[in-house]
């Protein structure tokens, strides 16, 4: 089953998505996907991993893979849904996408052992963990100005039940800009896998239902520009679309929506 959150006629609704890609409301009514606004399918804390694929670590000139997960945290202002908009700040040199498998926590997790960890996963979604390299500083790196910007982490479109993803460590990831394949990798190359990360995080803090763990991206970075349509796709999970706007377009739209 695929679970999504949408906004329809001003209401936020929990829905499912059928095999034809249509939205099924709680009362059984079916809507076309383009009639609704997609919201991020979960709203908890998003834990994100840096350098969790050996080839990507090498691409960023790290000599050896990390010994301990490099975890950073995002807050809900950063999330946006499927078919939403992100923005490239004026005057930056390099903003890139990152296609990532996301595990969504289904029940409270504290001191969970690796062997039991997948029982705490409700399902999987994907995210595009955009980064703006111009803003990196060597303090709490990657810092919030790089990774926690408004609407710059698309999440979705939906959560696929864990039972429907029997091999989360053997999925192909792909990113397309304007339909052209730019990044391809496999979750098999992940350094710290989902069970390891749940054991690691729940070893020092409590994970809550709706929290998400974004597991990092393989190599294959490329710059994105205003007007680009960026699709991140993971086999068996879904395809998450995002359109890049310029800074002025994004804030003009935001202002119109709030007035």
């Amino acid at each position, binding site marked *: 089953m695929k679970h999504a959150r949408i906004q329809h006629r001003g209401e936020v609704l929990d829905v499912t998505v059928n095999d034809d890609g249509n939205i099924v409301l709680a009362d059984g009514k079916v809507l076309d996907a383009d009639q609704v606004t997609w919201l991020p399918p979960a709203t*908890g*804390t998003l*834990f994100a991993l840096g350098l969790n694929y050996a080839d990507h670590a090498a691409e960023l000139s790290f000599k050896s893979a990390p010994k301990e997960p*490099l*975890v*950073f*945290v*995002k*807050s*809900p*202002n*950063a999330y946006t849904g499927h078919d939403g908009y992100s923005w490239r*700040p004026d005057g930056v040199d390099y903003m890139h996408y990152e296609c990532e498998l996301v595990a969504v926590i289904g*029940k*409270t*997790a*504290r*001191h*969970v052992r690796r062997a039991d960890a997948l029982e*705490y996963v409700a399902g999987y979604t994907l995210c595009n963990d955009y980064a703006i390299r111009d*803003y990196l*500083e*060597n*303090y*709490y*790196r*990657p*810092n*919030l*100005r790089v990774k*926690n*910007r*408004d609407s710059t982490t698309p999440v979705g479109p939906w959560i696929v039940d864990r039972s429907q993803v029997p091999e989360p460590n053997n999925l192909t990831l792909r990113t397309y800009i304007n339909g052209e394949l730019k990044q391809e990798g496999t979750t098999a190359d992940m350094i710290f896998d989902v069970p390891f990360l749940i054991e690691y995080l*729940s070893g*020092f*803090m*409590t*994970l*809550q239902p709706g929290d998400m763990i974004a597991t990092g991206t393989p190599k294959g970075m490329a710059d994105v520009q205003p007007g680009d349509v960026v699709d991140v796709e993971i086999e068996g999970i879904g395809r998450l679309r995002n359109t890049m706007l310029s800074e002025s377009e994004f*804030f003009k739209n*935001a202002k119109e929506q*709030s007035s």
Partner: protein
Amino acid sequence: MRHALVEINGQPSAVTVDGERLRRADGEILAADPVRWLPPVSGTVFGIALNDRALLESHLDSFNQPPYDKPPAKPVLFIKTPNTRNGHLGSVARPTGERLQPGPSLGVVIGKTASRVSEADALAHVAGYTVVNEFSLPEDSYYRPAVKAKCRDGFCPIGPWVTDATEVGDPSGLGVRLTVNGELKQEGNTANFVRPVARLIAELSEFMTLHEGDLLIAGVPAGRVDVQPGDEVAVEIDKVGTLVSLVTEEDATRKGDRS
């Protein structure tokens, strides 16, 4: 006016605080004594590290060396995840085998949506001020995000209440004191911030929308101290209030999750 959230018969209840008395919205008066104090805010909690001049200056030699190479150019930010929130008179567990340090700070409570506000308009977006104790494991490096040091359960006592911004007036020049078992251990003043509150709001809201109920931990002064199980730790801030926490030993016998 002081606004608090307390638990009455298992239910959260918003009250105003007048001396030792709590007044509910329906006018009923309660004694402060038997209630359980809850954190008075529920939005995202953003912390600003290194915002005390003496603290920043104490690190400048190392900040000109690798891995930092140069002092921070922008506010150094972190997120206290929702599991860290704790109320007045709550207990904070020292993790087994670790050192635990309180972090006294002014808390700035956002009152209305702030996106790209100027420094001159910033304080109009503040509802009020509270007291925060930003507990952390000691930080010997600022290079990577401090999730393991700062995101442990209960590590962010907030309260007891939010004091209206109009009552506090100018948020600079407020004395901040930490006592352990009644003895003064750490002292600072919001006049010593590297970036005053208005500037923080302007710089953060440039790339993150701040929402009503979000909280900024504006800055912990230099001189963090270790605390031990059994200690009573209080943070007192001029015109705002006094927040008390009790340090306990982590239950090392606990295995498996709590659910």
